């Protein structure tokens, strides 16, 4: 499970949803140790990706030409 790669284009909300369900599962605390470690790793990777996504913006403000000017 932890080896599953997070798709490069996975939307933020999907990552958050999965992270949320992992945290809930971990908090349930009933899984075997190996599974909990796998869950933790997957959760940490998801959280890391979320952070990367949030911080991948550079605040660029681009103005493209008025359509008339393009033709």
């Amino acid at each position, binding site marked *: 499970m932890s080896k599953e790669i997070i798709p490069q284009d996975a*939307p*933020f*909300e999907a990552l*958050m949803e999965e*992270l*949320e369900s*992992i*945290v809930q599962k*971990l*908090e349930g*605390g009933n899984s075997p*140790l*190996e599974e*909990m*470690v796998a869950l*933790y*790793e997957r*959760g*940490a*990777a*998801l*959280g*890391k990706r*979320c*952070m990367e*996504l*949030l*911080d991948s*913006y*550079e*605040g*660029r*403000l*681009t*103005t*493209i*030409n*008025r*359509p*008339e000017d*393009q033709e």
Partner: protein
Amino acid sequence: MQQRILTVTQLNEYVGNLLNGDPILRALRVQGELSGFKRHSSGHMYFQLKDENAVLRCVMFRSAAQTVRFQPQDGMKVVVDGYASLYTKDGQFQLYAQAMQKDGEGELYQRFLLLKTKLEAMGYFDPARKRPIPFLPRKVGVVTSGTGAALQDILQIIRRRFPNMEVVICPVLVQGAGAAADIAKGIRALNDYGGVSVLIVGRGGGSMEDLWAFNEPEAVKAVFESRIPVISAVGHETDITLSDFTADLRAPTPSAAAELAVPAYDALLQRVDELASERLLRALERSLMVRRERVTLLLRARGFSAAAHRAALERKRLEHFVKKLEDSGRSALLRRRTGAEDLLHRLNALSPGAVLDRGYAIVTDGEGRILHNTSAMDVGMPVVLHMNDGAAAARVERVTAANPPQKGEQHEQRNHTPGRAV
């Protein structure tokens, strides 16, 4: 034959009923100039309509008055829809207004209705076609006037909510000749730009004529055909254009469109941090804690030899986990990793396996009771030496009580293994 005598009420009700039965008076459209306009605190509007020769008393009840999309003023030329009847209390003939438009907009409004019917039939407004607005856009595209207040409002809200959001603006004409074509080209240009995941299309408030470009089929078609979800923000709350009907989401104002397009960065960051850094780690720590207690319980409850073996196994698993933790620990999220490591160190310290690994042995008698010092030993007594990988049976050959007992105690304290001799 005697003349029948009526009460005033009876007469007024009779006339009122006559008027109510008239098909023409039931659905009227009257043109005139506003005069004596008053808006009552109840929300009802009272006014007169007049022309050069006559005056007509009118009332517009609150529910209808709310649909009027301009501020009526005395002297304004308007067209009013409604029905006419007698107000039986004072015998006054009056018009009950149900809709009001500025004169001249009536024609525009008719065109609006016509276009609306046509585009609706083409499936433009189908709710099933509406796409969800992405939760976190890659880039926000804005199609509006480059000089209007709407653009400033939109940018300000985006910067406030998500300071580093990428924004691509295509400035266009939003009213007058060529505006509809301009809006359409702007929408297509942003569709082709790449990486734009949501569009805001709109302008600030104005008269129906000012907003007309957003009703023209050319502009509406571009909204309809946009591959990128569109949030429309044309005018104010009460202005509705066909672009609004066609867009995936309609915002009451340009500022509101920006709010809908972009999430709040701080709130998202906090949510991720709470989930990934706090709750995730805490849940894991708690489960490790439970396992540490289980190791301790094993040592107390069962035969020591089996317990030591289990503890060693458990410890191996935990060690494996520490390794994995460290492997995945390069993430900035693991700021609290040291906390987890501390916990694992303490857990290791409790585990007899860790002690055995350092080359020590635990000595028990034949029944598994731990021997703390030589006073419990006799020559020839069978003992068991528990090593890190198993146990050896042995026999005591000689007993020499050389070390003062308190030295052994210090030793135990240093290793945080009270009750277990080494």
